[in-house]
């Protein structure tokens, strides 16, 4: 007996988008993710909802896809999109000759550009360099990858889709040139089992090569590593791009309370190679200076890296020249029916990628229901009544924040707050309440503090988890959250991951912050279990 017709591998934007689309079309489907939701590239990216202007000159087709999907996401994903505009800035170091072809290419792709006088741009963004020469406004936006993935997951579930996290695919079985089942390991229970299905969708991002190999197939992808810097505050409220041929370190994206500078591009050792190096950090800082001359004075919260699942057919180079377009491979042509892979593309185009992939699978399964993901919002807007009820429990300025974070679970939180309270802040840097932490902890896809972090931003602010992780563990132990059983181990895991991003940026105020954290956990709480000194 088959419980599901389709198995989707990979809980990033692409996979979860496909799960939602399949579920909305009435196809029974389950998504398997080796870690937690958005543990892959979809949380290790720049957060830019591309207007396409960056690709206009090099790849007009990719640019067109971006601007179209940009408009769609503003419509269906209002909770996840930050409507900051983008500025393309010709700095003292950029070639003026690039401006005309860029403007023409944008026009061709359907991307509106509007000239802004440099003085006006500096009034809008006082931190910009006084030496900027030309500025254009484009419809770039910000997008929250964590939230996007989670809201897709909640929507998929409402339509019957299932999400299994901490489920690592270990094999793909076939008979007579057809996929029959997937072998999967529940890494928490340490149990391996088979899931019979008709179709397997490989949406494992930079890992999709490995998944294909399990099925005896190959796909042409190269994991391409990009490093990013998150700064402690929002020194720009516009997305600021350098107006030149795409290169490293040329975009600043304001993202909630922080600003992100990126990226680099280099071949990754493997898909999990995401530990940034101090040299990359220093390089990014100097690359950022032509736009924001004071960039070295701003405090870096952390560095992080992600791997692009870049499509590199044999005759192509990897890196910046590789296509940003997405690719769907139907492995039936290579002798394995029921196995399809999707990779490349961008987070901005995740929905379109999902639509195309779901069209293909539905066609094969004989399902004629059309795609509706471009029309149906990921989450409902909260009602006035609900907002008013929330405002009685939460400070006014925080109500909207919570509503956006939680999407369709907003009503649950309001109900919870009314019943049992919990409006006290566990994470003060990112304003996360106890009620939100408890709600996130109760989700069946939550197994670690990280999942709560992605869901709520707990631990993502100035202190990088030093205070809130302890408080959260306390609250979770109290309500008996399953993973809180070994609170010490859970805490250590969380802090180590936080510190992984701090190690490459140990200077200035950040090093003081780290020392404080070390003192709290290493000395006061003796988390590492050092011996009693009096012995």
């Amino acid at each position, binding site marked *: 007996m088959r419980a599901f017709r389709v198995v989707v591998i990979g809980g990033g934007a692409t996979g979860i988008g496909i799960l939602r689309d399949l579920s909305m079309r009435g196809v029974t489907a389950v998504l398997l993710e080796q870690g937690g939701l958005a543990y892959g590239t979809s949380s290790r990216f720049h957060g830019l909802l591309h207007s396409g202007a960056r690709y206009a000159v090099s790849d007009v087709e990719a640019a067109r896809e971006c601007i179209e999907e940009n408009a769609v996401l503003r419509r269906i994903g209002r909770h996840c999109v930050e409507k900051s505009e983008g500025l393309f800035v010709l700095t003292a170091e950029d070639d003026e000759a690039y401006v005309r072809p860029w403007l023409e290419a944008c026009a061709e792709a359907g991307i509106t550009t509007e000239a802004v006088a440099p003085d006006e741009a500096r009034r809008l963004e006082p*931190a910009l360099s006084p030496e900027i020469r030309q500025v254009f406004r484009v419809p770039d936006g910000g997008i929250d990858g964590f939230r996007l993935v989670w809201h897709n997951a909640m929507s998929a579930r409402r339509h019957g889709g299932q999400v299994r996290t901490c489920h690592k695919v270990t094999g793909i079985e076939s008979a007579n040139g057809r996929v029959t089942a997937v072998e999967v390991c529940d890494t928490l229970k340490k149990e391996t089992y088979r899931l019979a299905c008709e179709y397997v969708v490989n949406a494992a991002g930079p890992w999709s090569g490995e998944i294909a190999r399990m099925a005896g197939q190959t796909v042409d992808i190269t994991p391409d590593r990009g490093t990013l810097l998150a700064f402690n505050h929002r020194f720009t409220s516009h997305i600021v791009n350098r107006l030149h041929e795409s290169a490293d370190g040329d975009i600043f994206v304001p993202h909630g*309370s922080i600003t992100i500078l990126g990226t680099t591009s280099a071949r990754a050792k493997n898909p999990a190679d995401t530990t940034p190096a101090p040299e990359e950090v220093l390089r990014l800082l100097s690359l950022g200076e032509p736009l924001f001359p004071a960039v070295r004075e701003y405090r870096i919260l952390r560095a992080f890296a992600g791997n692009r699942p870049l499509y590199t057919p044999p005759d192509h180079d990897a890196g910046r020249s590789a296509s940003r377009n997405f690719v769907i491979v139907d492995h039936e042509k290579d002798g394995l029916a029921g196995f399809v892979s999707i990779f490349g593309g961008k987070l901005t185009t995740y929905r379109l990628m999902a639509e195309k992939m779901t069209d293909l699978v539905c066609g094969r399964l004989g399902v004629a229901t059309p795609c509706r993901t471009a029309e149906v919002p990921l989450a409902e807007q909260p009602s006035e009544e609900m907002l008013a009820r929330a405002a009685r429990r939460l400070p*006014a300025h925080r109500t909207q924040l919570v509503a956006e974070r939680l999407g369709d679970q907003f009503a649950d939180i309001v109900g919870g707050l009314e019943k049992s309270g919990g409006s006290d802040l566990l994470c003060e840097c990112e304003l996360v309440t106890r009620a939100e932490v408890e709600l996130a902890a109760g989700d069946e896809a939550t197994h670690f503090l990280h999942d709560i972090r992605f869901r709520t931003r707990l631990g993502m*602010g*100035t202190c990088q988890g*030093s205070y809130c992780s302890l408080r959260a563990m306390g609250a979770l132990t109290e309500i008996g959250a399953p993973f809180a059983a070994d609170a010490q181990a859970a805490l250590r895991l969380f802090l180590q991951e936080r510190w992984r991003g701090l190690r490459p940026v140990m200077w200035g*105020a950040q090093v003081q912050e780290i020392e404080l954290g070390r003192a709290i956990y290493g000395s006061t709480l003796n988390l590492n279990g050092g011996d009693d000194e009096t012995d």
Partner: protein
Amino acid sequence: MTDIAQPDRCIVCTTCTVMCPVAKNCLDFLGPRMIGPAHQRFRLLGMGEDESLHYCSNCKNCDISCPCDVPVSTFIMRARAEASREKPPKFRDWILAHGELLACWLRFIPAVFKNFGMGFAPVRLLLHALGIARQAPLPAFAAQTFRRKFKSLSQPQNLPRQVVLFPGCFVDIYEPESGLDIVAVLNRAGYEAITPEGFVCCGLPLVANGFWQNARQNARRNLEELARWTDRGLPVLTACPSCALMFGKDYAEYFPDLLPRNLSPVLVDVCEFLTGCMERGELSAPDVAPGAATTGDDHILYHAPCHLRALGAGLPGLELLRLIPGLRAEYADSGCCGISGSYGFKKDKYAIGMRVGSALFSAMRQSDAKLCASECGTCRVQMRHGGGKQTLHPVSILRRWLDGK
């Protein structure tokens, strides 16, 4: 050039919140770290203010305690200024912020009526209705301001040196005697005092109550006036630590564009100046006052105003008292008195202020000292109110000893 609006220096150690007297005594207040640098990150995102912003008393214990030199109270005062643009402060706050202006208007009313007015029950009821606590020790307007009294004062002829005195509003409006004490002691040290008409209120009460633009105008006038005197090489003294803090530190953080060459304009603490006079031999320490030992007046309990500590230049008032032979000056070391300018007068803040000051009040009660001292005028008001003991400016005490009283 680091922008003052950046929250980056804060390492979230929460020391400021632990040291904030208001946070300790009012659970509704989120505290300095949250309302200051933490919320700053969300202000940059366009998020509205936390409702508890108004609880901050601007006592600046957060700034004093921060190990990272974060301008915590400046974040808060700037936020209050922004919030006041959208929602203008209450009339009550206007009254409390504009003491100088009120005094100016009241000049034409005979003193008996003024004093009668402030202590008069129906008036207090009216003020209470406006939001000024009925129990609060609102000081009475003096019959004549210090500046008017000063004009008719004849200082000794042929004094060899000159100094400028910035009295501060409190001394000017409510306690001119303290000002006269200072002039008398300066004269004795060989200084003729000048109190120019050009100076106005330093603006600190305006900032604390959300009148940012008025404060800015005052800052501009004061800086111009200050330059006139310092250009002539004359030191400008003040008896009020809050005025000294506003000039020496806050102007630079609030209105950096008004400062010439980023230089901090300095008002010299009058106690520090007089200590110098003694060291230079311009002023000889008084003899032991006759009879003091038997009446118990030889023991003084000294309270250091928060704004004096925020200046970070020691405790010159206490030092001065300790230079008086035969006088035992004890340091109360009990934190904030709770008044913070006009904060403790407000109906919704009075109880908080009294709780904040309770440690000092009990120190005053437990001490053998009959007389207390503090440089700040409103601290003195609050100390008399909460601690029940006479409290004077250290220079007033010095004068009594010099005069053998």
